């Protein structure tokens, strides 16, 4: 039969054709890490990619980055509106399924770290001016250090990844001390690489930005959970070097800090540009009351506001007037405005609001809220306001606390640092002769009102000084009810790891209580 010959023959022909071409992909039109990083502009564009992760809408361009800090007294959320992602944390009942947390507080720092690792791994390939190359690399170290600092304070142990790793890499969670060691190492490297300023590019982290952040890191390490008291002296020294540099001065008027960009006390901030598609939505509508309407028909988004007793305990001073918004303007059918105190039954929740975030920057692009004391003209969710991550008052207060605790009592410099902040706030100088702890508590009190609702500053003080039980005890009965569901309040100092990440990392254990 012919078939008997044909079959083997067919197969022979087939085999002869196998593997005749190499099928190698050569992506000529696509950039790959293997061919990139040749020029300074390659490097600069890779550094811009790090920053870009931070300003996307779901990242740090809204109040998403504060949600897990709502257990704090400077932040609470409406009991009825669709604000469950932040309200659950206000009730100390946050959960791992919280999509906002997964995207912003967890996802954003990691996205920045991923891009930072790309720069750190490759910057030495670039041929060019060493100062410019170092300046770019220093940004990557700074953002990576800051991102790990945000992660470790928010979630506790996280894996430390400082190189590019393969797609199937599944690390363990590193200890809190290990994460802090990385933060310090990154910020110290940043200090050696970064210049004192980038003329024309105020959004770039500088040497003093790294020092300021490092001071804050040391101060946190001196308190819970590491409780390494020796770090008070290191914190004081770093903060002092920033103060002595003379690079920053307080803006004379507190309210102006929030209506100007890159002002004299801004140390590091995120830059925004509405027409370019990077709007800052943290200022404007975000913090305004739901029942407030402008003459243009827009209304507030009421994403967050302070707890009642937090406002009531505020010092009576000019800063408090500029910080809080306590008389609501309710539009009437005839387009006039009824002025209603926050605690009136005519308001929805009898809560004060923040004033300082209403306007946004006033001389650069759209204004968040245009108003007088009695008329609300326009409201707007998007502004070009720089979102300051680190302001000079924080360095002064870090110094005040650290120098006090390092020396077992406040020095004259400790007093002068806090009194700079108090004077600008319109408060009298702090009572002289306070004990170390009394002075520290005064600093913590000052921080609460100087930095309210800014980057979780108040929440992190509550965490590192373990203040949650007393903060809860001070809540007004009108606040959302605490709902611990049988969990120990001690477990609330950390946010749960998002559920998606837990499932992708079966080797991890969830934070206790979630």
């Amino acid at each position, binding site marked *: 039969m012919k078939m008997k010959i044909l079959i083997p023959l067919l197969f022979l022909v087939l085999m002869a054709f196998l593997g005749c071409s190499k099928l190698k992909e050569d992506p000529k039109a696509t950039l790959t890490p293997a061919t990139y990083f040749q020029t300074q502009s390659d490097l600069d564009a890779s550094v811009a990619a790090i920053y870009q992760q931070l300003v996307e809408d779901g990242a740090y361009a809204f109040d998403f980055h504060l949600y897990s800090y709502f257990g704090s007294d400077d932040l609470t959320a409406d009991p009825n509106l669709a604000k469950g992602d932040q309200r659950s944390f206000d009730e100390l009942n946050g959960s791992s399924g919280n999509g906002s947390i997964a995207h912003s507080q967890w996802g954003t720092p990691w996205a920045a770290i991923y891009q930072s690792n790309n720069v750190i791994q490759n910057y030495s390939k670039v041929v060019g001016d060493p100062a410019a190359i170092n300046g770019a690399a220093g940004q990557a170290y700074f953002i990576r250090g800051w991102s790990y600092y945000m992660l470790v304070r928010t979630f506790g142990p996280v894996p430390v990844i400082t190189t590019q790793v*393969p797609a199937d890499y599944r690390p363990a969670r590193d200890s809190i001390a290990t994460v802090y060691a990385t933060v310090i190492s990154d910020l110290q490297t940043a200090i050696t690489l970064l210049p004192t300023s980038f003329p024309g590019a105020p959004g770039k982290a500088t040497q003093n930005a790294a020092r300021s952040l490092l001071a804050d890191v040391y101060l946190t390490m001196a308190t819970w959970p590491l409780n390494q008291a020796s770090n008070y002296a290191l914190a004081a020294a770093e903060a002092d070097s920033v103060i002595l540099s003379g690079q920053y001065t307080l803006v004379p008027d507190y309210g102006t800090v929030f209506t100007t960009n890159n002002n004299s006390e801004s140390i590091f901030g995120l830059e925004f540009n509405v027409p*370019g598609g990077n709007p800052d939505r943290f200022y404007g509508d975000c913090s305004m009351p739901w029942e407030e309407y402008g003459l243009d028909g827009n209304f507030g988004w009421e994403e967050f506001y302070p707890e009642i007793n937090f406002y009531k305990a505020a010092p009576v001073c000019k800063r408090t007037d500029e910080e809080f918004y306590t008389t609501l303007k309710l539009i009437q059918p005839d387009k006039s405005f009824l002025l209603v105190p926050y605690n009136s039954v005519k308001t929805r929740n009898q809560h004060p609001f923040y004033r300082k975030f209403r306007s946004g920057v006033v001389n650069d692009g759209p204004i968040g809220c245009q108003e007088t004391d009695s008329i609300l003209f326009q409201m707007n969710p998007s502004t070009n306001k720089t979102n300051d991550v680190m302001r000079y008052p924080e360095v002064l207060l870090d110094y005040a606390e650290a120098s006090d605790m390092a020396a077992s009592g406040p020095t004259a410099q400790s007093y002068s640092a806090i009194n700079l902040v108090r004077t600008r706030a319109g408060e009298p100088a702090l009572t002289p002769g306070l004990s170390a702890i009394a002075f520290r508590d005064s600093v913590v009190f000052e921080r609460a009102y100087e930095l309210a609702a800014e980057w979780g500053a108040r929440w992190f003080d509550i965490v590192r000084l373990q203040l949650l039980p007393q903060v809860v005890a001070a809540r007004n009965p009108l606040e959302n009810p605490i709902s611990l569901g*049988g969990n120990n309040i001690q477990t609330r100092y950390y946010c749960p790891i998002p559920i998606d990440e837990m499932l992708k990392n079966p080797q991890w254990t969830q934070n206790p209580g979630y």
Partner: protein
Amino acid sequence: MGRINYSYKEKYLLTASIRDDGSSRLTKKYSTFPSVAVGWLMSKEKFMANSKVFSSLKLRGSYGETGNQGVPPYSSIPVINTSNVGYYFDGSSLSISTPLGPPVSTNLVWETTLQTNVGVDAGFLNNRLAFTIEAYNKKISNLLFSYQTPAYLGGGSYQRNIGSLQNRGIELGISGTPLAPNPGGLNWNTFFEISFNDNKVLNLNGLDNVIISGIGQPQANISILKVGKPLGEFTGYKFLGTWKTAEATEAAKYGSKPGDAKFLDVDGNGTINENDYVPIGNGIPKSTWGFINDFSYKNFNLSFMFSGQEGSQIYSQTIAYTWGQAPGVRNATNSDATKMWTAKNETDIPDFSTTGSPNGGFPTNTSRFVYNANFVKLKNLSLTYSIPQSVLGNAKIRSVDVYVSGQNLFTITKYPGYDPELTNAQSAQTQGVEMGVIPNPRTYTLGLRVGF
């Protein structure tokens, strides 16, 4: 590739092929896929040739492997993305950014489908009754999937071989002509088919035993891939009705009160959170069937088709929305709102309270919105009258038919939404997820068909 076809005495049939495929998109570029099919026309054997029962009988079997390289180009090469967005270091001038793309698989191989079929085709009574049965077992291994990385790998998606899944089933078809063919008299043709399917994820390569993100739309986070479960299993809280007045103390432990929704606390820790998610349904039917009949008598023709399915569920986001979207935004348009829990009439329909847990007592990922999708449907019915040639006479018209027909005339189902047959699934992984789908229309047609 090579292929042979061989037939011996038209009784023994053999087809075999082998192909070697290469794809530049994968790291292991070449893979070999053999297949073989055999058939035995038993009815042509001598011992069957004069059978009174069988008019034809064929046994057949096949085994084959096929490959899928369905990933975009450069899926195994890391890339630097260029985009129009960037960062404004001074707040006004754009610095172009070039982010590093997601990591890539270093071992990307062909997705392989391995399928075995066996079947019998039998004809009886001069082929007036035909019977087909086929069983298949299909295993897809090295499934290619756009997998979302953990956040520490940048959070993007990359192509990965994620595991294997199995599809097994039996398909049965019976067609018949119950009445002897009778030109001009009453004729009846009928056809019934049913298929049973069993689908499950066999493994996800050990890295995870469940994938919940990046599954796709329409409703994020409801469909998952889980080892041992069918593709696109729904996941969420098991709804237990309402907390009753007698359970007030127990409800308070969850921050709830009587009238609030009650969910299963799987781990019993006093909090309802994502750890309490359980499988709550699946959109892949266990069986589907169709039943077609065609009658003709003189110039009349009547045909209709029933179809149905059994064993699947629908997760209806639409129905969830009829209860309002969120705590405090409760403007129900669901008529069951009249039967909501009250202290006097403790029904299992939660009230509008916002104190419940989780999410103010109104999470949407819950079995409360998962419904039985079984149905029996009259898909179409049509009656045709053909005007006889004798009437048409010498007019230059070949045929004139007058007909009336209807589609989707009725459905028997417990599903409270519009149409259990349709969902918004965009892939097998999101089957059974319904979110504002436009139902099949019920249509009536009165027609005249003229042929020249």
